[in-house]
């Protein structure tokens, strides 16, 4: 897996960061390979529609398999709950800002931004750094495996 790899495969590698640890550890390299093969074959058969079909399937799996497993991780659960609480707070407070006077509305929005934005962005940044950190780890593991010219399974390395 090098930089010459298509953008979609690199994006899929990043998505793999959200899958459960045991699945990534044993199969991340093969999953990326199967995805790349499937995408190439779908593109040659049906062009953009084929590529979209493969991505739709990958997105479905992401929401069905990766996200529930990821939310069960404390490193993700805490910021995710915090974001949800702040999102709920902001949307609950929005009607109070609908004062017909434009000046009052500007003041309300400025107060909103000053108080809530830092609180909202902290858990968001925590999630982002978690994703970036784990994503680069997956990429390095997969690159390492791809460069090895042997079977990844120790049982068969005889």
């Amino acid at each position: 897996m090098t930089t010459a790899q298509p953008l979609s495969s690199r994006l899929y590698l990043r998505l793999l960061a959200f899958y459960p640890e045991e699945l990534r550890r044993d199969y991340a390299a093969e999953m990326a390979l199967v995805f790349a093969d499937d995408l190439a074959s779908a593109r040659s058969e049906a062009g953009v529609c084929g590529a979209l079909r493969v991505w739709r399937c990958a997105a479905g799996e992401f929401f069905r398999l990766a996200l529930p497993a990821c939310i069960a991780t404390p490193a993700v659960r805490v910021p995710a709950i915090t974001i949800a609480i702040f999102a709920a707070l902001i949307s609950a407070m929005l009607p109070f800002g609908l004062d017909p006077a434009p000046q009052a509305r500007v003041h309300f929005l400025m107060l909103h931004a000053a108080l809530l934005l830092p609180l909202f962005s902290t858990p968001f940044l925590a999630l982002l750094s978690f994703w970036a950190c784990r994503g680069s780890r997956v990429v390095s593991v997969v690159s390492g495996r791809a460069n090895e010219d042997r079977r990844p399974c120790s049982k068969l390395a005889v």
Partner: protein
Amino acid sequence: MERSHPPLPPATFYILFALATGDKHGYGIMQEVRKLSDNRLPLGPATLYTTIQRLLDSRWIEEAAGPADHDPRRRYYHLTRYGQAALHDEMQRMEALVRKSKALRLRPSEQHS
């Protein structure tokens, strides 16, 4: 024959079915599953390898050596006798269902005949 497990999930059934025709690597299994299910089972890499991992744990499939000139990045999988038995049981269950539906004349084509 007494069944010892509940009906198989579609992905499990089709992966066992695909491997019944010979040892295959992940992408080979995916292609065979599409062919066997007439493209009706959307099987992505995550579903494929989650199921493969479960099947390896239950020893229904095992890793195989693969052909001599195969890509070293790909692992091949082989259906074990436990996997064959499970596939056989599932097919018998399906056959029994079809027999029952025929006996009860539940299928539209038989209702009119």
